[in-house]
């Protein structure tokens, strides 16, 4: 009789729990239509499309999660081994079984009536295009992916990094394919693009393998030096950090200026979109991130900027058409935006934070509904909006709305301005007062800060920045409609700020480029235009995920991290010996000692 090695004890409850969550997730992803919608986007042609990626990553992740253990400092844990791998396999297999059932279901029942993706099309994708594939295959696939996920837990750290970097590089290159394609002309690199990409989209197999192994190898060899460098950067003190930041920012700015010259209209229009949202997000970052005011009606200021520009510059504005130049109208845009900021801000500024959020949302909607109504139609054109907004004459150049490169430069300029404003204000008397208000409004007031004025100032600065974005948007599109200013936009901007990292300027950049660049804005397509309406679903999930798992954002500001992880900072300082302890234990109790 053989006894099982003690390592082969499986935690069945755990396996079933994660396995069934995985199955549910797979069903959800399938029925929401991701595999079908994303199938046309090829990653490695013809082997792997984004549609399959949307399925495959789930068993992998759940295999990883189910097989990872809680590591407690100082507590012996058994070495990761066979039982972990098996856990991963089983979890993935249970997940995959979900899809097997789905396939059987689609074959045998027709409930396409409510479920639009319960379709032969989905079946075809799930069957990998084969006609009579045994649906049980998915159990195997799930198991295999679960194994890979579990294996990531077992293999050494450096190897894990190598594998994941290799994979993500391939994914990123494939996602950026349209952009690379577009850029290659400017750099005369068409041959390279032809070499690695299939004509009909997707990486060729061999280049993909070479790329992945190259990047993987590099990251294994470099042994996390990049991470160290970043950590070092974060650790830098005062002036040194400032210097590095300025250098880094300079590099980014220089790239921003130089690169567009080599890019085609596709990338430039993408960048222009990203830029407009970036500008909005930088503005909202001041309001939400620095002053801590959750303004859900932020889109109202965007609308004010756009409509003011439209009325003042368009020759065919219905009521009042002075036909000013864009630059001249900008003066009025700023004034009106600041005024609107005051008018909306003044009454709400004293409210409790959550009520303020809802009221600003209400204001945003009221403004849109009024512009949409017959009431203001004679002045602002109602649902038909205002058309015929000319391009931008800067004196030395003329930027027409279709000149995406010019628009991008303009946006870049204003983003630079926004960064400058945030940076300078943050380190000023006003910025400090915002910080204090965010920490404890009542005490801030007792320490002599006029909280109403300080908060109003944040509102106004944010409003002006948003109105710049509106002014550019109006000139770019050539027309404005009330329905371009839905609450949705406010929320998308909020997601950008939160995903990037509230209060963190680099974070907002990353957020805008990753979200708007790849997924796209509410109506603007991004690199992955296959997502279509699903991108809002992704936005929502990202928002929830970030709030739960990483509320400080992708590139957090140092202060925010510290705020959310005070305990850890205290422990750190204790380890480093820079903690602060009273000389002797204080005496308990504070009874009167008469």
């Amino acid at each position: 009789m053989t006894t099982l090695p003690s390592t082969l004890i499986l935690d069945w409850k755990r396996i079933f729990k994660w396995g069934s969550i995985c199955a549910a997730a797979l069903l959800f992803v399938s029925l929401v239509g991701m595999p079908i919608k994303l199938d046309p986007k090829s990653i490695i042609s013809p082997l792997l499309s984004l549609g399959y990626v949307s399925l495959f990553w789930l068993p992998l992740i759940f295999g990883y999660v189910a097989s990872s253990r809680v590591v407690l400092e100082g507590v012996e844990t058994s070495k990761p081994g066979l039982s972990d791998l098996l856990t991963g396999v089983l979890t993935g297999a249970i997940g995959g079984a979900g899809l097997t059932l789905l396939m059987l279901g689609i074959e045998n029942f027709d409930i396409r009536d409510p479920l639009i993706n319960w379709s032969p099309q989905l079946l075809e994708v799930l069957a990998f295009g084969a006609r009579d594939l045994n649906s049980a295959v998915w159990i195997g696939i799930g198991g295999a992916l679960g194994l890979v996920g579990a294996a990531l837990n077992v293999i050494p750290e450096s190897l894990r990094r190598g594998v994941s970097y290799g994979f993500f590089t391939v994914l990123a290159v494939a996602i950026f394919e349209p952009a690379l394609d577009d850029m290659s002309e400017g750099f005369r690199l068409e041959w390279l693009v032809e070499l690695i990409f299939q004509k009909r989209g997707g990486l060729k197999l061999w280049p993909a393998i070479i790329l992945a192994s190259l990047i993987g190898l590099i990251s294994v060899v470099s042994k996390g030096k990049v991470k160290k460098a970043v950590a070092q950067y974060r650790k830098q003190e005062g002036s040194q950090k400032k210097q590095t930041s300025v250098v880094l920012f300079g590099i980014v700015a220089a790239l921003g200026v130089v690169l567009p010259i080599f890019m085609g209209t596709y990338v430039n229009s993408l960048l222009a979109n990203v830029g407009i949202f970036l500008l909005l997000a930088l503005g909202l970052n001041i309001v939400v991130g620095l002053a801590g005011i959750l303004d859900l009606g932020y889109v109202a200021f965007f609308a004010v900027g756009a409509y003011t520009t439209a009325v003042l510059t368009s020759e065919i504005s219905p009521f009042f058409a002075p036909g000013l130049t864009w630059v001249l109208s900008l003066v009025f845009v700023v004034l009106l935006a600041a005024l609107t900021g005051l008018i909306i801000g003044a009454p709400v500024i004293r409210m409790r934070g959550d009520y303020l959020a809802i009221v600003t949302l209400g204001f945003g909607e009221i403004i849109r509904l009024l512009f949409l109504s017959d009431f203001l139609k004679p002045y602002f054109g109602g649902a038909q909006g205002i058309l015929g907004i000319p391009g931008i004459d800067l004196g030395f150049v003329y930027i027409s709305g279709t000149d995406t490169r010019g628009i991008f430069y303009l946006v870049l300029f204003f983003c630079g301005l926004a960064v400058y404003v945030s940076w300078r204000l943050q380190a000023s008397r006003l910025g400090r007062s915002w910080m204090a208000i965010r920490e404890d409004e009542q005490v801030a007031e007792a320490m002599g800060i006029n909280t109403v004025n300080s908060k109003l100032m944040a509102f106004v600065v944010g409003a002006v920045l948003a109105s710049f974005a509106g002014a550019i948007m109006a000139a770019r599109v050539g027309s404005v409609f009330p329905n371009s200013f839905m609450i949705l936009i406010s929320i998308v901007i909020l997601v950008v700020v939160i995903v990037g990292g509230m209060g963190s300027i680099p974070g907002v950049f990353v957020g805008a480029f990753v979200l708007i660049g790849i997924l796209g804005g509410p109506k603007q397509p991004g690199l992955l235009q296959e997502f279509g309406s699903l991108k809002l679903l992704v936005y929502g999930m990202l928002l929830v995920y970030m709030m739960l798992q990483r509320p400080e954002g992708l590139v957090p500001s140092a202060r925010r991290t510290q705020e959310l992880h005070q305990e850890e900072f205290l422990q750190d300082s204790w380890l480093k010996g820079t903690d602060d302890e009273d000389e002797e234990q204080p005496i308990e109790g504070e009874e009167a000692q008469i």
Partner: protein
Amino acid sequence: MKEEKTVTAVIEGKSKRRTPLVDRFLFVVKVFLIGLVTIGFLAFVAQQISPDNWFARWRNPGATGLSADQIKGLVISGLSQGVFYGLIALGYSMVYGVLGFINFAHGEVFMVSAYTGYIAANKFSANGMWESNFALCLLIVLLLAVMVSTVTAVLTERIAYRPLRNSPRLIPLITSIGVSFVLQNAVLGIFGPGTQGYPQLPEWLAKQRSILTFEISGIKILVFLVTIVSMTGLWYLVERTKTGKAMRAVAEDKEIASLMGINVNRIIVTTFAVGGAMAGVAGVMFGLLFRAVNPMTGFLPGIKAFTAAVVGGIGNLGGAMSGGLALGSAESIAPQLILEPLGVPGVTQLKDAVAFTVLVMVLLFKPSGLFGERLSAEDRA
């Protein structure tokens, strides 16, 4: 503990005073609005007396006046709309009372129920049962939809809100915005973007009836009846059962409640479940009455229901229903009673704007609601 209480109450005492400038601005706004409403209403009265009146003609040369039946119609449709706001508002109110945050996704729970109702009703309709055995079908549809919406509400609490129990109140609010996005777009992805229709109602239910000289369709009567029944049930639950007592205790002070042996987690789940069930009832009724649902169905009623909850005083359940009825009537009546006599064109388009204006005004001038809020000291901060 005691120190904290002191602090919050200080804030309360404080909020009575404002910076003079802001105060003056608000005063002007208030006077302006009251003036507008008064003039509009007087002009309406004038036009009712005689449309040829100069005062009636002053802003609105085409004034014709409304017949009694028209006004009754507006009231009925306002109230029947308000019932939904009230039912949804209960959920906002209860969750805010217990957890102190605005569950932005609550409107979506309502939408999910309306969708469930639509699917179930259409399945019944497809095999003829909807027509032949309507009452039974309706009961099943209602139960099913309430179940689904309850489960949705409870799941969102478990997944998204519970881990955030002790974070600053804006964090769960932002999270709930995300949840609302997810629910909307998940439904859109799974069931398609278009507007879906409920099956025809049987003749006896769709028919107009006359009660106390009010012309009212059978379905609206049904909506009112179901609402009364669910409100009674809720009242019984909150006021007469142990669970209800525990809910009120948790709303007052979670810490103390748990010291008294109340399972706070269970009570919070119950709160979400009850709120979800009420929204569920509202969802099916909404579907039956308007016979159309789409993924965005929950957004506007959701925000308006929150308004209703604030109007009635957060945490005050009777207030939530009254607030809903008041808001529904206001947005149904105000356009023609106040805006039209003021000569505003296309007034019916401004229904939503009226609702939002009510929201803004109530939060500005009477944030504790018309019937008084019932909040624990910590949530008031």
